[in-house]
């Protein structure tokens, strides 16, 4: 099979970008989408044209690096998979495929199809953790976690930080991502002491990074490769509201006993 590719090319963050059209070499339907791009790149290189830059690493749907919008949909036509888990058998001979990077203000483009998602890291640095110094933990089985909670926490923890949810949202909201992080830790007993401080810090950081507001259209859930549920956004909203009610904890006057 062969397909026509309309690919976004952009030299760097400052340059203007444009679509370029290529005809793919002969393809095997069992190739992955990224292997198709590898083959295209070898051909471009052999012709002396610069290969298309695209991000990838694990190529098995877990690192969250790959990030392509294929025909308008982040991670392509299949539900519940990443770009790297998309196979050419999902397309037909002669199809036209439009390939773009994530487009969102907080994810500036680095080159061609590669964007910069460090804003996600910064949100997590603001509070996405349970404070536990190395060596200070109690025996693991001294903190039982009801299986239901732990399974639900695991559902949220599956988020791979790819950013497709942001790319799909017309407001570039990062709510699904932040909700997944907040719910994972907030559902565990270990996460309770910092639960409200965490949600407040992360939501505020999300806003200052320039992510937009959530209007619950569900476009994020539809493209999420790990099928993170919108229910977690409701949970985030509840926790955030409580955190606002609670305000900052009052400091007691005076030091210790000395």
């Amino acid at each position, binding site marked *: 099979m062969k397909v026509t590719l309309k690919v976004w090319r952009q030299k*760097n963050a400052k340059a203007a970008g444009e679509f370029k059209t290529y005809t793919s070499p002969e393809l*095997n339907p*069992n190739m992955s989408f990224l*292997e198709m791009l*590898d*083959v295209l790149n*070898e051909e471009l*290189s052999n012709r002396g044209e*610069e*290969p298309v830059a695209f*991000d990838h*690493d*694990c*190529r*098995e*749907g*877990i*690192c969250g*690096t790959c990030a392509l919008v294929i025909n308008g949909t982040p991670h392509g036509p299949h539900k519940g*998979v990443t770009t790297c*888990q998309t*196979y050419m*058998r999902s397309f037909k001979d002669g199809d036209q495929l439009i390939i773009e990077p994530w487009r969102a203000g907080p994810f500036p483009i*680095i080159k061609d199809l*590669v964007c*910069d*998602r*460090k804003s*996600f*890291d910064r949100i*997590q*640095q*603001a509070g*996405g*953790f*349970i404070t*536990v*110094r*190395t*060596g*200070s*933990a*109690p*025996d*693991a*089985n001294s*903190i*039982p976690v009801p*299986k239901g909670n*732990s399974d639900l*926490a*695991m559902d949220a*923890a*599956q988020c*791979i*930080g790819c950013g497709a949810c942001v790319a799909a949202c017309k407001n570039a909201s990062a709510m699904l991502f932040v909700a997944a992080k907040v719910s*994972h*830790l907030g559902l*565990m007993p*270990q996460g309770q002491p910092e639960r409200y401080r965490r949600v407040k810090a992360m939501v505020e950081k999300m806003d200052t990074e320039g992510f937009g507001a959530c209007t619950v259209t569900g476009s994020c859930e539809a493209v999420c490769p790990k099928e993170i549920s919108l229910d977690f956004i409701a949970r985030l909203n509840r926790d955030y509201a409580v955190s606002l009610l609670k305000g900052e904890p009052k400091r007691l006057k005076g030091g210790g006993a000395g």
Partner: protein
Amino acid sequence: MATLNSNIPSGPLSQKWENHKFSSKLINPANKRKYKIIVVGAGLAGSSTSATLAELGYEVHNFVFHDSPRRAHSVAAQGGINAAKNYQNDGDSVHRLFYDTIKGGDYRAREANVHRLAEVSVNIIDQCAAQGVPFAREYGGLLDNRSFGGAQVSRTFYARGQTGQQLLLGAYSALNKMIGAGGVISHTHSEMLDLVVVNGHAKGIIVRDLQTGGIHRHSADAIVLATGGYGNVFNLSTYARGSNVTASWRAYKRGATFSNPCYTQIHPTCIPVSGEYQSKLTLMSESLRNDGRIWVPKRKEDAKKAPADIAESDRDYYLERMYSAFGNLAPRDVASRAAKTVCDEGRGIGSTGLGVYLDFAESIRRLGEDKVRERYGNLFSMYHEITNENAYTSPMRIYPAVHYTMGGLWVDYNLMSNLPGLFVLGEANFSDHGANRLGASALMQGLSDGYFVLPNTIATYLSTVKTGGRPGTEIGEFKEAEENVQGFIRRATSGKGSRTPDSFHKQLGKLMWEHCGMARNKAGLEKGISLISDLREEYRTNLRVLGDAENWNQQLEKAARVGDFIELGELMCRDALMREESCGGHFREEYQYTAADSEVQQGIVNVGDVKRRDDQFAFVAAWEFPESADKAPILNKEPLVYEEVKMGTRSYK
């Protein structure tokens, strides 16, 4: 010759670590802040150690080539992590985990390091659980376990099929906490391209900013490499595409010795190759062997039949037949070689004949499809995505693939290389797995090194370093190292040649698989060395990199990594040629058990099992880069002296 002192503490094996911690020098809190430590890598080893060092008060700088620390290859680990908790009350103990690991490594690991690993394993699970890692649990709310290869107890902790991601997110959250608190400065999209050695001590690195192409110098009081394994030397492997050997290799070229490079692990259960375009091989976790049964047809005439058309009595469950005590849970090297043997006999399945079945029919009958789905659902759907086949209704097709490298930079008990000030953690060092790693023990080692070992042992070195004595980056050594990096970039982008880095990588991979893969022999290795040296010459003269060095340029990144892989490939072949024995994952066809051996007659091992030669090869090979590149590398040996365990014949029957 390099000086190799393993610095193993004296005293009984089980007390060495405690004694060592007690007798090591401490650094007072006010001084810790004056030491700057560079950590390269943020996988399990790098994240955990960066966070912990910062908690202790050191000034830590963390470098990764990834866009985020969370994307390190550790994220891809599926199956689980071992720990001697004995929560199952099935007879596990620190000593048993230690013993299984030493035996699993075919008696080629350092005894004292492995014992420490087993001791520390229990703290790791506590640490991770407290961080909120959502480990699998039983209905009572306590932690669940599963079994992994090479063990007869259930000691593996897991989080669905993505234990690696969950443990990494835990370590990454600890790292984030310290980045947020200002204790760690994180440099992402920053690739280390050289090590700077000043007066024999590692004191800095040269880094390329992948976004801007800027080359930067960084100096520190100590350098920690936690840069992962080098399995991508084979091109096709279960590793992430970006995993590479560059940091370790550049350190080797600056004087750090490289140990046992030929010890590579071929994992028995991966999805077979489907075509020339293939870019990676996907692992199907070892945990599947808890409930899946491996077989091929008894007769080669049946190999092309659909599995459903092969009667039960015509199937050969060869692992159960050959290794009755461990069956489908035989260690990886054993299971992989057995798969190769049955395929070499013409009984391999699938279009290429390079495949065996992993069958769940019996477990589905016994447990029901729902239970199997709960345990392995994500793996079954991954298999379906890739192959378009349904493993609930017909068996999976699997074949061995390159998965892990036991070799790596040589380190002493303190995890310091022979270059003072250079420490090596996680898969990048050689120390704990001998000639074969057991499943679920790499995650354990990465976190043990990172959370619990290095933060203690680094003080032994730092206590000898004057505070405020860090060299400035303007001195000659930094200049020379930067010029070395710039020179490569200029040559690569000058546009003279005609071949892409990828085409060299593919060719190298095939060559390595053929000559230094699952079965090796003298003639093949010698041929491999000569072919690699031709390839190296062609790479030098005929490489072409498009684009410029001042922008994001993945082809340029690749070019540097492939160049290092080619050189490493040659060293691996040399190491395999030197090691005239078989052990663990290193199988030399000349050294295997035959029907004439008494061990076979007594039923301890099978014909074709690996045959060690302890009288001559009970040592760690530590290769040293020669004075000039045209000379052969120098072999140093660290004898393996076992105080407690007797080097026995490894039997899984």
